[in-house]
């Protein structure tokens, strides 16, 4: 099993969610996060004083999927979240040792 983690632009969340649902991903977890990459931050001005905002708001998506599905899920996220502009985010894949479904106690791929 693989954990797919993606950091995307917040307004792309709906597109990514729809694309993942239609390819059969049955669950994902979303968090509002802040961070910076090559895009850097932005500046805000209050009464003439400039503030540098280094950490921009992003959305983090996490989904655990079968090994075989992982490449497709990654491709789907990449194409749905792409705007061709700087700051689109990243996707990475991590191996997962064990997954347990809390309600039934199922383990491994059955629990995904």
């Amino acid at each position, binding site marked *: 099993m693989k954990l797919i983690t993606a950091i995307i632009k917040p307004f792309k969340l709906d597109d990514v969610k729809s694309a993942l649902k239609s390819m059969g991903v049955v669950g994902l977890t979303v968090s509002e996060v802040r961070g910076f990459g090559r895009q850097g931050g932005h500046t805000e001005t*209050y*009464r*003439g*004083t400039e*503030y540098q905002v280094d950490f921009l708001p992003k959305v983090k998506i996490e989904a655990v999927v079968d090994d075989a599905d992982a490449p497709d899920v990654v491709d789907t996220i990449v194409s749905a979240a792409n705007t061709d502009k700087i700051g689109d985010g990243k996707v990475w894949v991590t191996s997962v040792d064990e997954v347990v479904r809390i309600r039934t106690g199922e383990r491994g791929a059955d629990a995904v």
Partner: protein
Amino acid sequence: MNPGTTAWLLVSAAMVLFMTPGLAFFYGGMDRSRNVLNMLMMNFWCVLIVPIVWALLGYSLAFGGRGSFIGNLDFAFLRNMDITGDGGSRLLVLVYLGMFAAITPALISGAIADRMKFSAWAIFVPVWSLLVYTPVVFWIYGGIGSDGKNALTGWLGSRGSLDFAGGTAIHVNAGIAALAAALVVGKRKGWPREGHPPHSMPLVMIGTGILWFGWFGFNAGSALAADGVAVQAFANTFFAAAAGGLVWCLVERIKDGHVTNLGAASGIVAGLVAITPAAGYVAQMSAIWIGAAAGLVCAFAVSIKFKRGFDDSLDVVGVHFVGGLVGSLLIGLFAQPGALGQKNAEGLFYGGGTFLLREQFIANAVTIAFSFTMTFLILKAIDAAIGVRVSEEDEESGLDISQHAETSYNFGEVTMGRN
């Protein structure tokens, strides 16, 4: 008392009361999210304690008798109140002016945001109200004649300086007190290196709207009659605020590249502050010039604190002190009593020479020296007795939780259970 005037003053009084919560939101939005409730409570505290102080002693000391420097106790503990007498309803005027007494110390709270012990603030407000606000008001407006009407025997007012609704007595007074307070309480941890941007600009804009609305009661009500002077003051309040906001926005657009909400709000308040002393003494085109001048000067004045190194957190000095001073001094140029049916002296532009300009300068210089010194001493005394500053740990965790055991924003399920 004529029914129109009674009705207008009742409404005006409620409008001025509403300005204190308005100010609380104006300041609270500029605060960081962990200190918002402390800011609101500092302001609401003023409408709890000051009305009582005003009823027991404040009004009587600020207006009673025929002295030069301080009133008497004729009206202490709400004695000798008439409700509908020929000289006007003393009770109504007392209530109306009590609203002004309440908001004046509230203005100071913006300078010491995020770091003052609430217990110290709670003591400071009534003491300041009695020892600083009350005498200054007497000097400028005080004195009541044998006919029960205002007799203007206070030593600044009787010399001829003008202050229609409280430019000197309220904004310059509270503004310079704010500077003294910022110096005694000291800088916020991390200032100016760390940024302290506003946590909620929408709250600031709501507060600005409430202030602007209430200010019509503040200025036009100060005519103490439903008459032409009230109409003039109302119109001046309208135009000066618009001009102040507009000019601040233009300055920002040229200087920093964007028109900002905080700039618009600050300019509106600067315009309102500046027209306050002048509202019933100048004609409408002058009001536009005064508002515009305040917007321009204050937009630059808010950066003084960085150069001089005092942490006037929410710019009480840059907006209220400077704006009040601009408006008050400009009366010396723009006062036009003939056009308004008033009996005061003319300003320099309307044939009055430099008399009024000089008197405006004296009244403000006296108020600045007195208020700064007294505020400094009062806070030093409170500091010696109980300390004015929260601990570093309390400042870090935020004043909402450390001073009031509350938090402003509880989102989500994982917050708290009952003990």
